[in-house]
């Protein structure tokens, strides 16, 4: 089993770049002195432009209201932890402005919203790659093509389905699932919208696994169910990780689905909805916590991203297409 592409390095190669050799190959690259200087200038300028805004927010989030109101963040004055305290444990027992309930909501949304499409897509792509039946290529291409449906088109009918099931006239053809006003509604929406990409990524990955392995297991009398559980799933860990991170960041950062599916109910609103409201409401007082709130909402996906960037990039290169 050791010769299998268990590191999953293969899924990226053919989709985007003609070839992606490991990054050691550029050592032999030659450049004239002049271009290398131009290149350095470009690199430094872009590097600065891309990091200064976030850094500015970080600094601002630690400054007192007085400092924020009188000088720019680059003065680095008026240090305080008060905003972060207001947004987490609260001050003097007043937790009414705490961001924590929304962060908990986001976590409660993200985990199932990544797991459900993960499982559904793993099963589906197993069938599409390893079971011979007529029309399977056609089904795969159709699923991929469903990325054409924008969230804006799909989300309102989905909300109606969640609230009332499906009817033709007054005849119910699918009962309502009792998800209305629950986190389940938000999970369902994210799970549905993620499927085309999930199936695409896993299909790519599974196609790279040598056919012999499956055939050997079949000859030994293993059923498809057994092969999926005992052979495929362990091999698919890199692809599963790649999709999970992708979906984690996507769902955490989503505003549209959260806004429509939660219908403004704070009990199931993700942190992005709360922050968007804060931005709208902070022309007057309370604006001083916004930088800290923004930073708190960013920090979790950023940490996940930094820790697991390798998997994320792999997923990105394999199918940078998301609905």
């Amino acid at each position, binding site marked *: 089993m050791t010769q299998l592409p268990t590191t999953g390095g293969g899924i990226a190669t053919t989709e985007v770049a*003609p070839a992606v050799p490991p990054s050691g190959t550029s050592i032999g690259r030659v450049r004239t002195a002049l271009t290398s200087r131009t*290149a350095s200038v*470009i690199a430094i300028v872009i590097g600065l432009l891309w990091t200064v805004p976030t850094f500015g927010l970080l600094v601002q989030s630690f400054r007192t209201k007085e400092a924020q109101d009188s000088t*720019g963040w680059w003065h680095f004055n008026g240090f305080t932890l008060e905003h972060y305290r207001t947004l987490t444990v609260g001050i003097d027992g007043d937790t009414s402005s705490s961001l924590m309930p929304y962060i908990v909501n986001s976590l409660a949304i993200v985990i199932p919203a990544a797991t459900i499409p993960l499982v559904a897509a793993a099963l589906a792509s197993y069938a599409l790659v390893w079971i011979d039946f007529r029309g399977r290529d056609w089904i795969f291409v159709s*699923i991929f093509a469903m990325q*054409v449906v924008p969230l804006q088109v799909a989300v309102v009918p989905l909300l109606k*389905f969640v609230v009332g099931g499906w009817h033709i006239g007054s005849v119910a053809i699918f009962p309502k699932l009792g998800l209305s006003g629950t986190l389940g509604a938000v999970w369902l929406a994210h799970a549905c919208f993620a499927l085309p990409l999930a199936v695409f990524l896993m299909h790519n990955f599974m196609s790279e696994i040598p056919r012999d392995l499956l055939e050997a297991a079949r000859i030994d009398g293993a059923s498809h169910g057994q092969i999926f559980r005992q052979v495929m799933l362990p091999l698919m860990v890199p692809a599963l990780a790649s999709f999970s991170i992708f979906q984690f960041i996507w769902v955490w950062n989503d505003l549209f689905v959260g806004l429509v599916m939660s219908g403004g109910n704070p009990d199931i609103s993700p942190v992005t909805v709360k922050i968007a409201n804060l*931005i709208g409401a902070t022309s007057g007082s309370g604006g001083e916590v916004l930088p800290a709130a923004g930073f708190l*909402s960013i920090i979790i996906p950023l940490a996940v991203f930094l820790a697991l960037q390798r998997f994320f990039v792999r997923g990105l290169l394999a199918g940078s297409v998301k609905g």
Partner: protein
Amino acid sequence: MMAAFLAVIGILLLAIDRTPKRGRERWQAILFLLPAIFLLLVGLIVPIFATAISSLTNEAGHFTGFKNFSWAFGDSQVRTAIYNTLRWVIIAPIIATVVGLAYAYAIDGIKGEALAKALVFLPVAISFVGAAVIWKLMYQEPGLEPEGLVNVVLGWVGVKPLGFPTNSHTITYLLIVIMIWIQAGFATVVLSAAIKGVPTEMIEAAKIDGANAWQAFRKVTIPSIRPSIIVVMVTVSIATLKVFDLVQAFGAQQYGGDVLANKMYITYQQAGIGSIGEHRSSALAMIIFVLVIPFVAFQVRQMINNRRVR
């Protein structure tokens, strides 16, 4: 619900092992595909028909042809939103790709390349809403609060504050800057991988033939990575067509900075249940749908070609 979902999957896996012998492969395939098909049906296939029908009917459920669409194209706010959306789609993908390409090429092979790449890639993990908070600070106008860094820097070169966020001439461009800031990292990562795929020998051969670095870049590197450049542009274009969060977070619709996706949401949100507004918002959603089709069609063709190569 999570438990229910896992229970369903468990039962499914058991059922797969107990399918009838006749036509077994086919039964198993159906069971494997069942959860995915269900989710697609509920979340994408039925909704697309529902929205299409909704866009062609009125609040009484009568078929009214393209009346909701002619409302859309006649409404000055929608026209502004369409015009702005087109500006977004023309500007953001091109600049994000150019910046990503320049940066990927500039840092290729230098010391600390991984770090340099990570810095630009970070905004990819930041939500549009988070980015809105970050850039609100950057764009801050002098007045109640001190001016933001952007105005300070513009002041050095003698440009007066732009009047963000209420200036209808600049708001769309200032939001596009944020979009580019978010998407350039994606472009950098994909194009950097592509650049590393260009054989060094090809570039060296061009140099031996007397090409300078810029010529080698233009005549050898760019043509070699063209497929990746197109993929990046198409992907960013699709994301840009659906841009919503940034416009919503800045409340840009009040200052002439609206786009289609946001107009669709606002029309939906302001409509009473069963009012004509719902049907109009469906029409706006269908316009986005039609605009996205060519880009996704390209991706599908690309994917099929790639499969054929294998």
